[in-house]
């Protein structure tokens, strides 16, 4: 069951490339693979805390009050992560900048908490948070590796590659949009081939 959940979070329902939630950091903090991993892990930690809190108090949250309550949880969790990162990992804080506190309003966190954790047990919510968090980190990592390779000509800071002139646009904002657009198009192409194959059978 845990494996199926992981597969769902990582591939079938990948937060960024299939469900299309939490796109802001995916476009913004993927200039290097390292930053992408750090961002993904920070979001995952916030998501785990929020999912557990939302699941613990699921009897108390009504349909109308869910957004304010979950926002409250997520800003508490993000404040905690922010304070810890600023204290122990100042380099990561500089690297992620404004997007670290903005984990509080990450669409993935709000979506998982309000759609899943509010209706399921704590253990299931924890599993869901880990799966979605890993899927999110993996998606950011893919975008990060592509953008770092094309934009700076390095791989996890190793390089620069010989005989390769970096395409600077991939390290800037338009490059973020461009990379995400191309990956989304590729995913939708792969998905449509698979669905037509199923129909043909």
């Amino acid at each position: 069951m845990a494996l199926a959940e992981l597969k769902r979070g990582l591939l079938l329902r990948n937060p960024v490339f299939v469900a299309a939630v939490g796109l802001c950091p995916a476009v913004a903090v993927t200039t290097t693979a390292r930053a992408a991993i750090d961002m993904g892990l920070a979001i995952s930690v916030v998501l785990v805390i929020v999912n557990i809190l939302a699941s613990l108090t699921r009897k108390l949250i009504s349909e109308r009050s869910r957004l304010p309550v979950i926002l409250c949880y997520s800003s508490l969790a993000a404040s905690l992560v922010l304070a810890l990162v600023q204290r122990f990992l100042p380099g990561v804080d500089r690297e992620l900048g404004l997007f670290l506190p903005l984990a509080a309003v990450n669409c993935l966190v709000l979506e998982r908490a309000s759609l899943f954790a509010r209706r399921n047990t704590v253990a299931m919510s924890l599993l869901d948070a880990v799966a979605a968090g890993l899927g999110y980190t993996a998606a950011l990592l893919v975008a990060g590796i592509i953008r770092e390779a094309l934009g700076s000509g390095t791989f996890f800071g190793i390089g620069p590659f010989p005989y390769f002139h970096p395409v600077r646009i991939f390290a800037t904002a338009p490059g973020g949009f461009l990379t995400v657009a191309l990956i989304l198009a590729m995913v939708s192409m792969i998905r449509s081939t698979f669905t037509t194959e199923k129909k043909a059978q």
Partner: protein
Amino acid sequence: MSNLSILLHTALVAMFVSNLPLVRMLGVCPLASTFSFRNAWIYSAVAAFVLTVSGTAAWLIDALILAPAGLEVAQLLVFMMTAATLVQICETTFERFYPRMFHAIGTDLSLLAANCAVAGLMLTVTDTNSVTGSPFSLVEAAVHSIFAAAGMSLAILITSGLRERIDLNRLPKPFAGLAGAFMIAAIAAIVFAGFAGSPALH
């Protein structure tokens, strides 16, 4: 720099040079939602209102309540609650007085509370002004908020207008929908990168 030129610089930087969605990549989601151009007008007007008020309110809350009380730790929590309240007020007003408009953009409207642009702007105006290098004054914060809001509306209108035109053509299948929306955003972002001067793209 004189006061007036500082304000002018702050306004231009907020609206164009560090445009919220297209340059700073805060609040990208509205660019990806499939509004019609008409609904984009309504949405961007509401978003502009929320951004302007929340940005200015964030400065006031920070300077008058949080800083004197030494409660900077709770900044994020207080800001989020402020934004949620503001959006709830807008939503209730819309539902009561403009039910048809509310149905057109309802769910996107409630998600405005969780929009990175709103939260990002609130955290920006309580930080340093990149124009002067010192913390924002109240007037600078208000000007920054108003023009950042205008820049956000501009970005939403540009992308939704472009999408309406582009959707009339035959697109390659994978680029229909979200991927196409991001492609359009990329083109608009290239244009806005030009406002920062050439080094950004060289």
